[in-house]
């Protein structure tokens, strides 16, 4: 119910937004790595970095929208695994890949729809529902494909998913991602649909009273998330040339961590896609750099954790400092003049 309006007002940063900070941090990390880390700046490494980060980035797009609207989907990695498993199973049966891929995407849609219906029709908490489907979808994947590992997908598809344009750092797969990113940015930040998501996330009841079709919007979002997760599953299987039931296991935590790092507020109602994508690539780049300079996997985990904690504590501390400074400045200031002209009846 009524969350503290006061606490929210305080939490809100008046000056520097966190997504900008993450973006800046990404740029700094990239610049530093280019100049100081051997093997980072060459095209091959960059293409690897981007290619390996793409699955997280792909799912982060709908996840950001979902989190903005106050929900979460932890079953994404399992949906990806399921669509990979189905892809492998159908391929083994001799179906054409051109037919298989749409079927896989359809399965993703169904997975998302199931999540969405459970959340919107029964009013169940999405966290609980998707922990359940996280197990269920992965389980179905296991039933579908068992212990097989399917690797013999057609070369032109594998090349598209794993290759890069000429000798540049640009993987082929980056281009469709950029298109999807553009669509997502416009959808979230410039359409009525996106606007309504912010309202739903911040106060579902007020959104309903404003005539926003809350349940429908959420259902659409869950379905989209399922679709994107299965697309990621297909991409994953082709990128790594391996369809197994346990593909992408644990990816949900990486996505959630990256989205959180990007400043998306899990209370809903706040955040930008730019921040989320910057968060995804910041984590990806850091991991790449740390491996190159021989930081052990264990230490990398610590760095990720510290980064997350700092990402929420940092803005808070910064705000307190700036608030304290503002208070000192404001004390002797003259009475304020409102921006709006004096109202005339």
């Amino acid at each position, binding site marked *: 119910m009524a969350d*503290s309006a006061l606490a929210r007002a305080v939490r809100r940063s008046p000056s520097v937004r966190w997504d900008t900070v993450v973006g800046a941090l990404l740029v700094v990390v990239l610049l530093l790595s280019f100049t100081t880390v051997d093997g980072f700046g060459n095209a091959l490494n960059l293409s690897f970095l981007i290619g390996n980060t793409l699955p997280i980035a792909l799912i982060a797009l709908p996840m950001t929208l979902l989190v903005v609207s106050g929900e979460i989907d932890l079953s994404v990695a399992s949906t990806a695994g399921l669509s990979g498993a189905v892809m492998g199973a159908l391929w083994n049966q001799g179906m054409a890949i051109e037919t298989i891929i749409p079927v896989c995407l359809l399965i993703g849609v169904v997975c998302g729809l199931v999540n969405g219906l*459970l959340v919107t029709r029964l009013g169940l908490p999405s966290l609980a529902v998707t922990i359940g489907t996280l197990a269920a979808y992965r389980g179905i994947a296991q*039933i579908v494909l068992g212990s097989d590992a399917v690797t013999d997908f057609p070369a032109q598809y594998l090349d598209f998913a794993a290759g890069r344009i000429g000798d540049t750092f640009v993987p082929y797969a980056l281009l469709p991602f950029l298109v999807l990113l553009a669509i997502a940015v416009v959808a979230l930040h410039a359409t009525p649909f996106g606007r309504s998501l912010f309202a739903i996330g911040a106060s579902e009841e007020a959104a309903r009273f404003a005539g926003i079709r809350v349940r429908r919007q959420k259902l659409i979002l869950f379905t989209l998330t399922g679709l994107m997760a299965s697309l990621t599953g297909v991409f994953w299987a082709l990128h790594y040339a391996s369809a197994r039931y346990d593909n992408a296991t644990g990816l949900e935590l990486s996505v959630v961590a990256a989205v959180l790092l990007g400043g998306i507020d899990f209370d809903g109602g706040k955040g930008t896609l730019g921040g989320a994508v910057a968060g995804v690539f910041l984590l990806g780049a850091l991991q790449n750099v740390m491996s190159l300079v021989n930081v052990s996997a264990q230490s990398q985990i610590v760095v990720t*954790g510290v980064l997350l904690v700092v990402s929420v504590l940092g803005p808070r501390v910064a705000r307190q400092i700036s608030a304290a400074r503002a208070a000192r400045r404001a004390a002797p200031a003259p009475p304020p003049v409102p921006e709006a002209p004096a109202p005339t009846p």
Partner: protein
Amino acid sequence: MTVVSPDPTPVAEVAESSGARLADRVFKVRELAILLVFLVMIAVTQAGNSEFLSEQGIKDLLLNATILVLVATGQALVVITRNVDLSVGSTLGITAFAAGIHLQGGGNPVVAIALAVLLGTGFGLLNGLLVSLGQVPALVVTLGTLYIIRGIDSIWVGSRQITAADLPAGFVDFGSGGISAVPYLALIAIAVLVATAYYMKHFGSGRELYALGSNPEAARLAGIPVRKRILAAYTFCGALAGLAGALYLARFGNVDSGTGTGYELTVVSAVVVGGVVFTGGSGSVYGAALGALLLTSVNSVLPALGVSSVWVLAINGTLLILAIAVDRIVALRVAAALKKRNARHG
């Protein structure tokens, strides 16, 4: 509900009985529903496999649930305050190893358990401080400490491991022993559970946890020391994760740097299945414990029925959803019935 009577005669007495009792019962029913699901499941399994409820079988069921019950109890407290602690799995892993190292060096089991609890308390305190003083989203912070504690654990443990051979025989026997079908570990868990439940219902600070989860701003205005309470909930949760770590060591006799990885999702599932609401303010530790018992039992029931392990994961997930869906539908039905009963007309 308001009856504005034109004359000043008291009217409060009238409403006292029906609504109150029923509402009271509803809350109990919620946990009863889970208990029922659990009993049905056990009965069906027993019908299909008479070995299931043998003395050994019951002991196994209780033992399996013990560790999850402890962690879920602590987690329930945190969730009731509208927060969450995702770092419990990492805490369990590192405390189990700490206890193991102590025992490996020929230490005293009691000291080892105390050490684990203390270490867990420390990490709980850290989480609590970050969440309450920083006033930042618990999900992010504890996801962060999940990684941090796990990282520290793996750096410290490296590829070392504690095996049963490193532990005093008495300690390992304690982990699997018990009084007939009731393991010692389960007795510890039950004692902790009952004490916590009593505290949550009958002590002011316990009720205040509910209050501040229900409406944090109102809690502040009511003069409840919000930060102190949140800190206490996290510390308690950490302490229980530490205790669970020590018991894990006794139970499995084996700890390495991966112990407890991914445990947070299981714990959260148990708490949610047990009817503790994620937006805070409602639910009980008994519910969380029942949820834990239900979840771990599913993992025993399926193998006992001879279900191929290929199916286990899918069935597990489906059951989890079913459990929360049934719980929800029952709650909705009861609410509707209540509304009709309380209608002011007629």
